[in-house]
């Protein structure tokens, strides 16, 4: 049981209200008719499965029903940040996480 900060509701909510929706920041090939089968196949089917830092899409399913992004450590389950759709993550590697801890401390 953990809390996620919904960037649209502006407050922490119980995990039960959310659903994870997989890897974030996938970019659809600009020209689907012109791309190779491999490029299209990668977009449709292939996802990373990292041990450590991961950017994911979550949806506030029982709440405002908005999708947003989460930066999470898949090893410790620690949620490092949540941010709105269309914006970029602040934390992009685990060293940033160490830094942000030091700043907080």
């Amino acid at each position: 049981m953990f809390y996620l900060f919904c960037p649209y509701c502006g407050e922490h909510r119980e995990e039960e209200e959310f659903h994870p929706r997989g890897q974030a920041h996938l970019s659809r090939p600009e020209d689907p008719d012109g791309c190779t089968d491999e490029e299209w196949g990668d977009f449709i089917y292939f996802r990373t499965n990292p041990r450590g830092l991961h950017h994911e899409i979550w949806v506030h399913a029982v709440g405002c029903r908005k999708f947003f992004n989460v930066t999470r450590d898949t090893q410790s389950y620690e949620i490092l940040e949540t941010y709105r759709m269309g914006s970029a993550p602040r934390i992009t590697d685990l060293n940033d996480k160490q830094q942000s801890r030091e700043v907080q401390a």
Partner: protein
Amino acid sequence: MSEAVNAAVNEPIRVAVMEQLPKANVTARSPLAHSTRVVPGTIQETAGVYLWEEALRTHLAIRGNAGSADFSRGVEAATGLALPDRLQCSQSGDWSLSWIAPDEWLLIGPGKEAYAMELSLRAQLDGHYAVINLSGGQTLLRLAGPKARLVLMKSCPYDMHDRNFPVGKVVTTVLAKSQATVHRIGDEEWALVVRRSFADYVWRWLMDAGKEYDLGPRRPE
């Protein structure tokens, strides 16, 4: 292909809007018509918590861009209510307008006025917006009394403490593994909007959860 899609977007919007209440002499039944019947002689004088349904009200979902002055002016002109801030509710007389999401609000009012209100919203609004009549899809429950908050604390994972849930706040959250839009109307007064298909389940859950506080399935006198 993309040209055809854009052409469709530029066509004038056509929406089928209709009076959803039957004109013939048909008895309206709320989703809780069967369970709210009170057996005479079973009611105690005082209850720690009261539970009742405000049946067959108007429920309209309004969607649009909160940042657009035209949109907020249009909603206010039709409803007399200002668009509420995040997790808040605007109220006036028998109407209330609750924040549901950054681009969605729930308007609740007298049951027979759904069609007229939808028409006046459509007359006032323009551009990219939606008005959806949900009156048949959900219902309004009321919970009141000194122990009402305890019943909600048992039922929701959300923090119901005064410091987190002051009067006036509206939150859509989990209620007994189902979902409800919970509005704190007063110190000891709450309104719950639940789905029609879950109304019976939620009603029975609340009846059971309120048993230890002498729940009375009726309005307080």
